[in-house]
C-alpha cells in the first residue's frame, strides 16, 4: 500500500517536471555539451570536421588580439561589478534611512527604471549623449567652460564610458536586493551597535556588512555573470572600437562563429567564458563557507 502510493507520487513527480526538464535538456544541457565537444574540433561540415585537441584554446591564449579581448572583458567585468555593487549598496543604505514614504516610492521607481529597459535601447540614447561634437554631455561640459571628452572615440576612455553607462543602467537592481537584505538585519543588532560604536561606518563594516554578506556575495556573482557576457552596449556604442579597445568576448564569439565560420574556435571562447563563470561561482561558494555567518 505504502510503496504503491510512493510509486504514484514518483510518477506524478516525473510527469510534472517532464516539460521543463525536456526543454532544458534540448535548449541548455545538450547545447552546452555540444559546444564543449566542438571546442576541441575544427568544424567543417563540407570537408569534414576533425579533432584538434587543445589547439583552439592555445590559439586563444597565445593570440595578441584574443588576449586583448580577454583582458578587455575581465577589465570591464571588474569595474562594472565593483561599481554596480558599491553604488547599489550605497543607494540602499541611503534609502534604508527614515524618509517620507512617497519619496522612497519615487526613488525606487527612478533608480529601477533603467534596469527594465533593454540595454540595446538605452545604449542608443547614451550613444547620442556621448557624441563628440553633437553629444549632450559635451554640450554641457563646454557650456561650463570644461574641455569636451572623447567619450567613445578614444581608446583610453571608451571602456570607462561603457562602464559608466552600465552602472547607471544596472545599479538599481543591486540597490533593490540590498534594500531587502538590509531590512532583514534585526533591529536589536542595529540598536546594540549604535550603543557600542561611535561611527556609522565602523558599525557598517563590523556588523551590518557581515550580516548581509551572503547577499553581497550573491550580488557579486550575479553581476559577474552578467558583465562577462557584455555585448549589446558595446556593439551599439563603439562596435568594439576604437581598434579593439572595447571588443568583448561575446562580440568576438559572434564574429568568429557567424562571420568567419570558425565554429570550433568560437566554441572554445564560449567554453572559456563559462569556465571563468564557474571559477567565480566556485570562489563565492568557498568564500561564503569560510566567512559568512552561519
Amino acid at each position: 500500500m505504502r510503496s504503491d502510493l510512493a510509486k504514484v507520487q514518483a510518477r506524478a513527480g516525473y510527469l510534472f517536471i517532464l516539460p521543463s526538464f525536456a526543454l532544458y535538456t534540448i535548449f541548455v544541457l545538450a547545447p552546452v555539451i555540444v559546444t564543449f565537444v566542438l571546442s576541441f574540433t575544427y568544424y567543417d561540415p563540407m570537408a569534414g570536421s576533425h579533432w584538434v585537441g587543445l589547439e583552439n584554446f592555445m590559439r586563444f591564449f597565445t593570440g595578441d588580439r584574443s588576449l586583448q579581448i580577454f583582458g578587455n572583458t575581465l577589465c570591464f567585468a571588474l569595474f562594472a561589478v565593483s561599481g554596480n555593487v558599491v553604488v547599489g549598496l550605497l543607494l540602499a543604505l541611503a534609502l534604508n534611512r527614515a524618509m517620507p514614504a512617497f519619496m522612497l516610492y519615487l526613488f525606487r521607481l527612478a533608480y529601477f527604471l533603467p534596469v527594465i529597459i533593454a540595454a540595446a535601447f538605452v545604449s542608443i540614447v547614451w550613444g547620442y549623449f556621448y557624441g563628440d561634437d553633437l553629444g549632450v554631455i559635451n554640450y554641457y561640459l563646454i557650456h561650463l567652460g570644461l574641455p569636451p571628452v572623447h567619450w567613445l572615440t578614444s581608446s583610453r576612455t571608451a571602456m570607462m564610458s561603457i562602464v559608466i553607462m552600465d552602472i547607471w543602467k544596472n545599479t538599481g537592481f543591486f540597490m533593490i536586493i540590498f534594500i531587502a537584505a538590509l531590512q532583514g538585519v534585526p533591529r536589536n543588532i542595529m540598536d546594540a551597535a549604535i550603543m557600542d560604536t561611535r561611527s556609522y561606518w565602523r558599525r557598517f563594516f563590523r556588523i551590518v556588512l557581515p550580516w548581509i554578506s551572503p547577499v553581497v556575495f550573491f550580488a557579486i556573482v550575479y553581476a559577474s555573470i552578467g558583465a562577462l557576457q557584455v555585448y549589446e552596449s558595446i556593439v551599439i556604442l563603439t562596435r568594439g572600437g576604437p581598434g579593439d579597445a572595447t571588443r568583448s568576448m561575446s562580440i568576438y564569439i559572434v564574429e568568429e562563429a557567424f562571420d568567419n565560420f570558425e565554429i570550433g574556435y568560437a566554441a572554445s571562447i564560449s567554453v572559456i567564458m563559462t569556465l571563468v563563470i564557474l571559477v567565480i561561482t566556485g570562489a563565492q561558494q568557498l568564500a561564503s563557507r569560510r566567512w559568512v555567518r552561519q
Partner: protein
Amino acid sequence: MHTKAAKRWVDRLIIAVMAILAVFMVLPFAWLFSMSFRAPGEAYKMPPSFLPPSLNFRNYAAVLHSSVPFLRIYWNSIQVAVLVTLGQLITCTLAAFAFARLKFPGRDSLFFVMLIGLMFPAQVTIIPIYLGFAKVGLLNHPIGLALMYLTSSFGVFLVRQFMRSQPRALEEAALMDGAGYFKIFYRISLPQLRPALSALGIITFTQTWNYYFQARVLLEPQQSMTLPIAMDLLRGYMASGNLSVVMAAMSMAVLPVILIFLLAQKLVIEGVAMSGIKH
C-alpha cells in the same frame, strides 16, 4: 550628545543627493521622449530638450511609413514575449510543484542539474542552437527564439522557493480525501502562487522583450527581427538627420515595458528582491 540636529541635516543632505541622482536616472528617458516630438530638422539643435516642445506625432507616422517593417517587427516582439511568458509560467510552475511538494527518486539531483543552468550564458548554447535551427528550418523565425526560452532554471527556482514558504496543510488534506496530484496542483497550489507567478510573468516578459544577443544571431532578415535589433538597424538607416524619427520608434518600443512597470512596479521590485535572497 549633540547629534540629533546633526542627524536631521545628514538626512536632508542624503535626500537632496538622492533626488539629484534620481533626476540623472530619468533624464535619458525624458530626452528620448522629448526628442521624438522634435522636428527632424531640429534634432541636433542645442541645447537639448528634456520636455516635448509640442505634441506632434509626425515622427511616429514617419516610423510606420519607413522602409523598415516596423509593425511586423513589433508583432514579432509581442509574439515572442507572450509565448515565452506563458511557456515559462506553465513549465516552471509544474516543475516547481514537483520539486517542492513531491517525493521521487533523484529529485534533488535533478533540481541541482536544473540549477546549474543559471550559470550557463547564452554564449555557450548559441552555436549548437544556431546549427540545429539551420537544420530544422527555425533560423530566422521569431518562434525559434521563443522556443529557446519556454522554460528557465530561474523560473523553476523562484516558484519553488515561494511554494516552500507556503503552508502545505490544505494540500495534505486534499491528498487524504483522495484527490489526484494534478487536481491538488491546479485547485490548491496554483491559486496560492499568484504573487510569485505575477512576478515571474512580469520579469520574464520584460527580459524577453529585451533579448539582443540571441535575437541578433538567430534572426537576420528584417521581417523576422525583434525590436532591440531592429532599433540598431533603424538607427543606421536614418542616419544623422532623422534622429527624432529613431527616437519615436524607440518610444514605441519601450512603451509596453514602461507601462507594465508603472502599473506593477511593486511586483517587479518584489520579484527582484525575492530572486536576490535565495540563501
